[in-house]
Structure formats: C-alpha cells, structure tokens
C-alpha cells in the first residue's frame, strides 16, 4: 500500500536532489577527460578546462587501437578476469564458510588470516615463492598467488554468519552435510555478497599491472593495463623522470589527449560489468526466505 505522507515526500525529494548533486560532482571530471581525449593536442594546450571539444578528433583513439598488442592484451585480460574471479570466489567462499562450522583450530586460522592483513612479506620473497612453485611466465602467476583477499575472506565469513540460523537448522534436520549447506544454502543466499566481492576481485584483475610485468617476461602475455600505462607515463608519480630527462627523451610521452583516451579505454570494460551486477544489490533479495 503506497501510503506516503508529506514528510515522506520531502524526505524523498531531498534525497533525490542530494544524490543528483553528488552525481554531477562526480561526473564533472569525466567530462573533462572525455573532452580532452576527443580533441586535438592544440585545443588541449589552449584551454584551461575543456568541458566539451570544440573540435572533435579521434587521433588519440586511433593511436591506441592501432596495435595488435592492444587487442591481444584485451583478450588476455578478459581471460584473466573471468578465470581469476572464479578462482577467487571459489577459494574465498569455501574457506570462509568452512570457518563458520566450529572446527578445531578455527579461531587460530581466522587469526592467522587477520595477521596477513597487517603483515605482508613484500615483493621479493613473494617473487621467490612464485618462482619456486613454477608459476613464472604463466598467467597463473597472476591468479594463484592472489587467490584469496584476506579482508574479503573475513567479511564474507561474517556475511555467512549473519544468515538466518533457522534455515540451516532445518536443512540439518533433513540430513544435510556441510558441503550441501554450503552449496545449496549459503551460496544462493549470499548473492549480494558474491556480487560485491566478485566485482572487487574482477576489478582487481582488470587493473593488474605490476604483477604482469614482474611475473611475465613475454610482452605477448601482458594484460591491458601494462599496454595502456606505456602510454600514460605519468601514472607513477614517484618514478616521474627528472625534468631534464623527460624533455630529452627520444620518445617523449604521448600528448595529454592520448593519455586521457588511454584512461577511458582502461576503465571502460569494467564499467560495463557493473550495471549487470546491480540487481543483486536490490532490497530484500532474501524475500520470503524466512517465514515465521
């Protein structure tokens, strides 16, 4: 029954307005990036803040799309993202659920996981282990060593723990074992969490850059961010060349227009994924699951 009082309407109105304002504030810079990417270098030089190209030019995009390496890298990255995310969710959810069943040593294991949130070994020791486990120069070097995010594990575990007990009790009465509880109850009920963390993991894979260079020698295996960041040289501020060197390079960094185009292209595919996941964040996904 849609019984809305005027306070309700006011509430809604203010809410909608604030959200719209926020959206504009967020969108603003993208307008800038978008415009700079679709214009000529001279135009960019002229204007302080370009919000709409007065002269459209697709030079920047042509520059980016011209290479085979670009398309190949996209393929690599799609594979990496899909397979990687599946591996992530598999490892994370199984372990998270297993740690809610009250096994011996459960608390210690959770503590050990927490420990890894605070302490990490660093690049060199991890590299040595990756090498020792034979993963160098394989795409699995980008998947297995990061199979579980410790924070994700902790939070997903907490999500599992907040599922309604009654459902599990009922299933156990019916003779379900832990595996069945996991697969038939916990997972289906956790769609929002799976969607959220699936997205997090996917974005993380999509953004793989450093690990790609570190573990893979052959440029043919590199994911898309490596290709793109060859363009946006400024992406590492600490490594920004001394002014002198940057000016005297034999291949100076591409113009800002290309860098902006690279930024958009780098973001695009993952942006397209999100709307599909949004339905899992709708209210009351667990409708009717618990009755009386």
């Amino acid at each position, binding site marked *: 029954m849609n019984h809305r009082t005027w306070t309700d309407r006011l509430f809604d109105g203010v809410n909608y307005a604030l959200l719209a304002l926020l959206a504009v504030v967020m969108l603003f810079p993208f307008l800038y990036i978008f415009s700079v990417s679709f214009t000529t*270098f001279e135009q960019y030089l002229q204007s302080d803040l370009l919000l709409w190209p007065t002269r459209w030019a697709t030079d920047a995009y042509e520059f980016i799309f011209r290479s085979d390496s670009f398309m190949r890298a996209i393929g690599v990255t799609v594979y990496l993202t899909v397979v990687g995310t599946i591996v992530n969710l598999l490892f994370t959810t199984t372990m998270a659920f297993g740690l809610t069943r009250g096994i011996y040593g459960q608390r210690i294991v959770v503590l050990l996981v927490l420990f890894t949130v605070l302490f990490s070994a660093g*690049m060199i020791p991890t*590299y040595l*282990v990756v090498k020792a486990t034979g993963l160098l120069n394989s795409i699995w070097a980008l998947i297995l060593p990061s199979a579980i995010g410790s924070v994700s594990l902790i939070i997903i575990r907490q999500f599992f723990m907040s599922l309604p007990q009654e459902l599990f009790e009922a299933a156990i009465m019916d003779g379900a074992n832990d595996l069945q509880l996991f697969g038939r109850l916990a997972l289906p009920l956790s769609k929002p969490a799976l969607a959220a963390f699936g997205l997090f993991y996917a974005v993380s894979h999509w953004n793989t850059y450093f690990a790609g260079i570190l573990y893979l020698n052959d440029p*043919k295996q590199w994911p898309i961010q490596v290709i793109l960041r060859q363009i946006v040289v400024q992406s590492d501020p600490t490594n920004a060349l001394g002014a002198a060197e940057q000016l005297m390079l034999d*291949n100076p960094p591409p113009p800002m227009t290309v860098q902006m185009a690279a930024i958009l292209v780098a973001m695009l595919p993952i942006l397209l994924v999100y709307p599909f996941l949004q339905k899992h964040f709708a209210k009351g996904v667990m409708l009717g699951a618990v009755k009386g």
Partner: protein
Amino acid sequence: MKKKWWTHTACAAALAVLAAGCSNGGNSNNSLPAGKQGADDADKTYTVTGIDFIYGDVPPMDGRGVKMINEKFKIDYKMNFIPQATYTEKLTSVFASGSIPDIVGMSSGDLANNYSKFAKQGAFLALDDYIDDYPTLRKVPSYIWDQLRVNGKVYGIPNYYPKFGFTTIVRQDWLDNLGLKPPTNYEELKQVAIAFTKNDPDRNGKNDTYGIAIGININPALIQGPYWDPAAWYHKDDKGRFIPGIISNARKDIISMFADLYKENAITRDFATMNWADTNKEFYSGKAGIFIGTPRGMSQPYMEGLLQLNPNARFVHLEPFTAPDGSKGMTAGRGFSGITVLSAEVGKDPGKVKRILEMIDYGRTYYPEDRMNEKDPNFDWFMGNLGQGYEIVNGVGVAKKNASTEGLAPITYFPDNTAWPEKDSDINYAKSYTNPTLSKLVQEIGNTYAQIKYYATPNYSVISATELAKGADLNKYIFAEQTKMIAGQRPLSDWDKMVEEWKAKGGEQMIQEINAEIKIKDPKEAWN
C-alpha cells in the same frame, strides 16, 4: 594424514625459497672450462639473455629484428624489455632469484646505487681488458670511464648522451614587439621578464602574459653557466672546499631574482605545485615567454601546438652568461645515460663474452649523415632494410613509425643502440625535427654548443655514502626552503641559517666526503 602432506609442501616451498634466495649461482648456459681462454668458436651458437628498460612500447620477443640479429651474430637472443616505470623492481627480483641475465641495462641514475653496489659484490664482469678490442669502446674518453670505475675497474659500457644541457629560450617576437634585445645577464633577463608581464608583448590588448615558466623544485632555474648551476660543484667555501651550487651565494642571487619576479607576478604563480608537464604547458600555450630548450628531445607536438596558436612565434636562445669571475660556458653532463653491464657469470665463457661485445659494439656504431641510407650495408641492416624498417626522409634514413613497436628492425633490440660519435657536434639534431621553426632553433642552439667550453664538475667521479643515504632528503629540504624564499614566506636574510640547517642534516658530511676524493684544486682545471 591430511596435515602431513601439506606440511611437506610447506617445507618444500620454504626450502625452495631459502635456496633461491641464498644461492646465486646464476644461469650459465654455455660454460666452457677455463682452459679454453680466448677461444671463440665461430660456429657455436650462444644463447644470450638480457634485461633492459625501455620507454614506450615493448617490441615482441620474436620480432623480425630478433631473427636478423640471431642470424648475423649466430646467437639465440632472448632480451627482456621492461617498461622503465617498473624496471627497478623487476631487476631486483630477478637478481634476488639468483638468475642474472648475461646482459643487464641500467640507468645512469643507478650509478651510485645499484651499479656500484652490485659491482662491488661481484655481480658484474670487469671490462677493462676488452676496451681496446672494440672501436666504439676505444672512442670513449677517460673521464667517462673514470665515472664508471668501482674499486679501480670498469664494469659498464656507457650509452652515449651529449654532455650539453639546457639553455634559456625566449620569445623573439615578444622581444621585437617591445623593442628589447635578448638578455646577456641576469639583470637584463629580469627586466625582460617584467616587461613580458606588464607590457603586453603579444600585442593582443589583454593582460594575459608573463615572464618565466617555472615549476616545482624551482625547475627550470635558467642556468646560464656552472657559476649558477645548483648541481655543479664549482664554488668553494671559506675553508677552500668545493661546495654544491645550491648553497652558494650565486644561487642566492638567483633566488633573490626569482623572489623579486614573484612579487611582480613575472614567474608562474603556482610554481610550487606545477609538475613538468604543467610547466611546459605554461610556455607552449603562450602564457609565459621564457623557458628552456636543448637540441635533443624537444617536443615537436608542443611546439606545433604553440605555433598553431601563435603563428608568429619566434624563438631565440641565450648564450651562456659571463660570470663575475670571467668564466663562460656550461656544466658538462656525464656524457652518458644508461650503462650496459655483463654478468660475472658470463665472464666464465670468454668466447661468449667476445660474441656479446661484438654485438654491443656493432650497435654503437656512428654513421655520418651521408651514410645514413641504404648505401651503407651496415646502416641498412641495422635499421631493418629500406622500405621495411626505415624510409628516407630529407635524404636521411629515418625509422618507420611502426618499426619499433613491431620489432621490425634490429636497432630496437640492441641494449645500447645509441651511436657514439667522435664529438657531440657530429650529430645533427636539427634533422630529427620536421618543423622548420623548431629545426632552426635547434640548429642555432647546436651551433652555440659546439663553440662553448664545458665544466667537468668534479663530484661526478665521486660517490659519497651520505649523498646516497640522505641526498633525497637534503634536496627536498633545501628546495622547500628556497621555494618559500621565492614566495616571500621566508626572508632571504635567512640564507646562511638555511645553509647551516642543511649542513646539520648531513650536508656537511657530504661536503667532507666528496672533497676527500676530489682530485683537482681549482675549478679552472676542470674546463675543457
């Protein structure tokens, strides 16, 4: 039972890590017993591994250029190019895992750090005995070899880099409009900067121009001679020791000038927050009229952007200023950028070493302009054959646009592909630009550079432990203080106090360490 097998895995993994981290036996593929000294089996194909950094696109590992190299030198060439931004991390990891490639590229920025550290630890092969055997190595002057010496031995081959630096360039059209001459000293420069700010030099009726484009860390500082160069060790303190220019009184004068100009809004007001790209934009968008330039590596897109906005823009460069002590010239750069080293491991196989050096030497060959075409078979091969790897532009062979990205030519794959000329002026930079205004400017700068004298700052061949440990910190501190002085937030009268603070932070130590090693007594000895 389950516990046991994964304990085993863990132990195995742990041992593997320790083993990898501990041993550094290296990856020698073709070790010959020591008795075969000097033998280079001409029929033997060597596997040559390498790692090097690269700016821009990384070529494929199996490009046409690689195949050509393999054929010509009878090697199986496996060079890994790594984007420069992440090179240090990759290099460190590769070293840590115990497998050092045969050829390693390093940047000259690493000279005091990784290069010298690893050389001392025995990671690289000493090259002294080989220098005389290869023409391009013989051409390297001793003052450059000296910079590469660690414990008396040379461990790296320098990649050529001109020893000239930047000079100030000024909008000639603005000078003309205001009836001014190019400045010949800092006082005149100051006046020009103010005039550019106040007198509408582009004659567009708007107050939208100013003098000097400057960015973070007071860069560019418009250095017109080693006398004023913050990085050169030219001046001496009252104890007779060489000191870095950044704490000298000459620098104080420059800072004072900038402070005055700041008050007049004649330098970039936001300079403290402008990065290099932003600073360039100030000049190339026509706002500022004074900036810097140099023959090698000017940005054609920036220049063309400016010319589109101001088709009448003209440029003049400034000759070095005559200093109060009568000196006139420029601080010499190191003369190289980039170092190529060979691993100590590969030294065990003299035949392989010779093959590698042969290849490296080939890549450093200098071709005079009239031989930069298909008539010289070496050039033609090096550039990947006419029509495929390069084309003729203005009578000179120029790489095709996609040649490096697709790896069509051998040149892309050499660890050192910069020609080593007899003298700096042998290379005609003007030809590398297609824009006539830019070419002309570069030509004029080059002419000046060919005639001036260069100051070999004595700290180049000295490594100071304190500089390594605290250099970044010291610079951060002193640039911040001088920035504040320019912006009027710290009085210039505090200069001596600032120098004392800098010294207390480690500057004094650094001065002592460097002076202990400097061989010359007087700056005059270092001019050539």
